């Protein structure tokens, strides 16, 4: 099929920091018919996947949850890719049911480590070619991440295409500075601007210089980790929103990401935040076989015990 290079399967790696808009971009690509015959693999660091619920348009979806595929989930990724290679070899390229693979990584993944995992595997090296590394960058938070997160910089450096997201919500001066900084980190990758997934033309931007990023070599940085919070039962939505809105106001730079699906009287709500910015919840269609009512918080600078004790205090209000 046309999707292969020298008979090898074309792999598109879609990376980018936590909440940078990977799923939104991919969802729009699928909506426009791109990657129509690709296997979509979604990796999430947390045990509870959410993104797969949004990618219903994909013909074939594989979820790799509970471990980032550039490190702890690496073996599962290799195993899954090998399985797809086997399937294609068995069926023959012409009869294969897919013509490529799109891997949406977790926001904590270094795409270069995934490329390395493929190159160092004796099977995958002969069957898979990395066609493209698309990395999404949040127009609102991208610069802050580049200032403080070595991982954010490695993601940019690994890209063959950069997609700046949420450009409709950012100031032109901020976008201009981000673009200039991206060009210094990765001069060869073309940069696209998007809003809610689709590409847009940017307005005239003021001439600005790239940010002089601090040297992060040797700088201590606490690990970023996920915490699962179960709603329903003892934790009611209203108390949870009082707690989370206060938490994001006070600790929005530490709680980098919150996401999950919650069943409420108003329907199944998809809750998503990136630092202090909370998206208006999408109302998802009913789906009986889903494990809802779980919110995953991803961040650093606190302990799981603190988070649970604090939420418990808020939830017990009026019930003491």
């Amino acid at each position, binding site marked *: 099929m046309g999707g292969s290079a020298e008979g090898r399967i074309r792999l598109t790696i879609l990376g980018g920091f936590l909440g940078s808009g990977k799923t*939104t971009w991919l*969802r*729009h690509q*699928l*909506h426009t018919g791109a990657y129509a015959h690709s296997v979509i693999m979604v990796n999430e660091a947390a045990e509870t996947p959410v993104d797969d619920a*949004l990618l219903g*348009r994909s013909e074939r979806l594989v979820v790799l949850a509970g471990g980032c595929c550039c490190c702890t989930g690496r073996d599962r990724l290799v195993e899954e890719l090998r399985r797809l290679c086997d399937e294609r070899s068995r069926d023959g390229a012409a009869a294969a049911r897919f013509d490529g693979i799109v891997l949406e990584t977790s926001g904590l993944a270094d795409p270069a480590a995934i490329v390395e995992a493929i190159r160092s595997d004796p099977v995958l090296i002969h069957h898979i070619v990395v066609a493209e590394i698309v990395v999404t960058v949040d127009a609102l938070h991208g610069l802050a991440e580049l200032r403080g997160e070595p991982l954010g910089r490695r993601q940019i450096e690994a890209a063959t295409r950069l997609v700046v997201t949420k450009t*409709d919500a950012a100031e032109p001066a901020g976008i201009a500075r981000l673009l200039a900084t991206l060009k210094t980190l990765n001069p060869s990758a073309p940069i696209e601007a998007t*809003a*809610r*997934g*689709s590409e*847009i033309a940017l307005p005239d931007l003021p001439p600005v210089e790239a940010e002089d990023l601090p040297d992060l070599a040797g700088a201590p940085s606490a690990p970023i980790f996920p915490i699962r919070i179960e709603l329903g039962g003892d934790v*009611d*939505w*209203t*108390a949870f*929103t*009082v*707690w989370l*809105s*206060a*938490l994001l*106001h*006070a*600790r929005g730079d530490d709680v980098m990401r919150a996401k999950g699906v*919650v069943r*409420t*009287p*108003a*329907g199944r*709500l*998809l*809750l998503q935040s990136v630092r202090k910015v*909370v*998206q*208006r*919840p*999408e*109302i*998802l*269609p009913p789906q009986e076989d889903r494990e809802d009512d779980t919110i995953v918080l991803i961040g650093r600078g*606190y302990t799981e*015990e*603190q*988070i649970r*004790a*604090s*939420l418990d*205090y*808020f*939830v*017990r*209000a*009026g019930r*003491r």
Partner: protein
Amino acid sequence: MCASCGFPAAPGHWTEAGAAEPHDRLRSRFRRSEVLRAVLPSYGLSAHDGGVVPGIQLSSLTGGETIVRNLEDLWVAAERMCGRPVDPLDPRFTGSA
């Protein structure tokens, strides 16, 4: 900008998205007040929402008073009134030293 590849968003502020019917909304506002009454006094603040008019009335012990539209605005106003953010991870809520 593409608006057709997502699902419809809940109207209003995100913290109020869990209630669509009037009785659910009212119940949620009372519950919200209940939680705020347990959290704000230790910061010298109090909140009142009678459920009749929109907004939450936020007052300080020193006589400051304002009406906010939603929880997001409330935490901003609370920080302004008492000079520091209400931090859910403060030991007074987590019980840790």
